[in-house]
C-alpha cells in the first residue's frame, strides 16, 4: 500500500466513521420517527411525551390514521365507561405488519396499552408488500439487519438502518413537520389521527379538510385503481415473508405481556375491493383465522359490503372521511373496545 492508497483508505475511514456517528446520534435521539410527510401520526412528538396510561393504542397505516382517529374512540369510550380515556394512533406511512411491529416494539416498550388495535388489510402481511422496502429502510433498527438479509431482502434495503442517520439528522434541521403544526397538535391533545370530535372547532376543522380533499376520490379512481391489482396483489404470500413473521412477533409479544390485542380489517370502497382478486381475499381471511384462532385474538371484520357501498363515507377509495371515521370508531368502540376495557 503506497501513500496514495493510505490516504484514500483514511478518507474512506473518516467517511465511514462520520456515517456511523450520525447513525448513532439519530438512533439515540429517535430521529427516524420524523417523517417526510405531514401524516400519518406525529410519532416524533409521541416519543417525547411523558408516559401516561394508554387505554387503546392503534398501530396501522394511513387507513387507520383516517378511519380510526383516537379522538373518536375517546369520545365514545368516555361515554361508555364513565371516565376519561386515552387512545393514541401510532400510524406509519404505508405500514406493513413489519412497521406496525417495530412501532409497537419501540414506542410502546415501556408503556403497554390496555388494548392494542392492529389494523390489517389484504396487503398488510404480503411478502411482496408494495412498500415493504420503505418500511424496512425507514423503521428497522441496526439489530434488525441480519434478519432482513436472512429473508432475502436486498442488501441495499437491509443496510439502510446503518446508513440513514445523515438523512434523519437533515430532516431534524429541515423540520418538515414545522409547517404542519396541526399534526403535532393532534398528537398532543387528541392522540393523533386525521380527525377529531371533541368540540365544535374539531368538527369545523374536519369539514374544512374533507372539503379540501373533494377532488381526491376521482383523482385516485383515475391514478390508483387501474394499478392496484398488478401493483399490490401479484405473487401474493401472507404466510412466509418477513411481514408475516413480524405480525406473529407482534401478537406473541403483546399478548405475553397482558395486552388485549384486537385485529381489525378496515373497510375500503367497493371500487377498491373489486380490484382485490377473490382468491387473494379468501387467502387473507384464511391466514387471519389460522394466525389469530390459536392465539385467541379476536378478528373484527369491518370491511362489510354495506360499508363498501357507502360512497359518502370515503374521502378516496381506501380511506374514510370524517363522517365515515366517526361511524366506524363508534361501532368498534361499542361492540368491541368498551366491553374489553370494562371486562
Amino acid at each position, binding site marked *: 500500500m503506497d501513500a496514495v492508497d493510505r490516504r484514500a483508505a483514511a478518507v474512506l475511514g473518516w467517511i465511514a466513521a462520520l456515517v456511523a*456517528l450520525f447513525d448513532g*446520534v439519530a438512533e439515540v*435521539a429517535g*430521529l427516524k420517527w420524523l417523517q417526510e410527510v405531514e401524516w400519518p401520526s406525529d410519532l416524533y412528538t409521541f416519543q*417525547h411525551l*411523558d408516559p401516561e396510561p394508554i387505554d387503546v393504542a392503534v398501530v396501522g397505516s394511513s387507513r387507520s390514521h383516517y378511519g380510526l382517529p383516537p379522538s373518536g374512540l375517546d369520545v365514545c369510550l368516555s361515554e361508555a365507561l364513565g371516565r376519561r380515556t386515552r387512545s393514541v394512533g401510532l400510524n406509519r406511512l404505508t405500514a406493513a405488519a413489519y412497521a406496525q411491529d417495530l412501532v409497537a416494539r419501540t414506542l410502546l416498550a415501556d408503556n403497554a396499552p390496555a388494548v392494542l388495535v392492529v389494523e390489517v388489510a389484504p396487503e398488510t402481511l404480503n411478502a411482496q408488500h408494495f412498500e415493504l422496502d420503505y418500511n424496512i429502510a425507514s423503521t428497522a433498527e441496526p439489530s434488525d439487519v441480519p434478519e432482513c438479509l436472512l429473508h432475502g431482502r436486498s442488501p441495499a434495503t437491509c443496510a439502510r438502518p446503518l446508513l440513514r442517520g445523515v438523512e434523519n*439528522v437533515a430532516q431534524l434541521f429541515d423540520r418538515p413537520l414545522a409547517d404542519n403544526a396541526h399534526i403535532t397538535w393532534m398528537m398532543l391533545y387528541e392522540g393523533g389521527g386525521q380527525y*377529531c370530535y371533541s368540540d365544535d372547532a374539531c368538527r369545523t376543522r374536519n369539514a*374544512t379538510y374533507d372539503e379540501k380533499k373533494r377532488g381526491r376520490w376521482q383523482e385516485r379512481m383515475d391514478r390508483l385503481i387501474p394499478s392496484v391489482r398488478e401493483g399490490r396483489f401479484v405473487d401474493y404470500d401472507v404466510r412466509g415473508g418477513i411481514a408475516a413473521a413480524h405480525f406473529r412477533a407482534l401478537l406473541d409479544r403483546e399478548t405475553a405481556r397482558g395486552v388485549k390485542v384486537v385485529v381489525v380489517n378496515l373497510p375500503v370502497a367497493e371500487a377498491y375491493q373489486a380490484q382485490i382478486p377473490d382468491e387473494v381475499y379468501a387467502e387473507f381471511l384464511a391466514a387471519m383465522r389460522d394466525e389469530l384462532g390459536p392465539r385467541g385474538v379476536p378478528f373484527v371484520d369491518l370491511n362489510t359490503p354495506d360499508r363498501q357501498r357507502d360512497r359518502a363515507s370515503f374521502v378516496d377509495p381506501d380511506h374514510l372521511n370524517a363522517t365515515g371515521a366517526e361511524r366506524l370508531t363508534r361501532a368498534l368502540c361499542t361492540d368491541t373496545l368498551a366491553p374489553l376495557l370494562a371486562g
Partner: protein
Amino acid sequence: MRTAAARRPKPSPPREPARALLWGSVALVVIVVAAALALPARDAAALGEARRAWTEQGQRPPAPPATSGGTRELQERM
C-alpha cells in the same frame, strides 16, 4: 545543465489550509451532532409542558388548520 534553482528541493505545499479545513470540518460535525442531540431534548421539554398545561390546567390552544397533506408523490403512496 541544470540551474542552481532547479537543483534546490521543491518546498512542501503549505499545510495550514489543509489543517484549517480539517479542524473546520471537525468543528462543524461537533456542532451538528450537539444540535441533533439538543433539539430533541428541547422539543421534549416544550411538548411535555404543553401537555401538562392541558391535563393539569385545561389550557389547550386552538387547533391549527389542517393542511392538504404532504407532497404529491407521498400522497400518492398513501
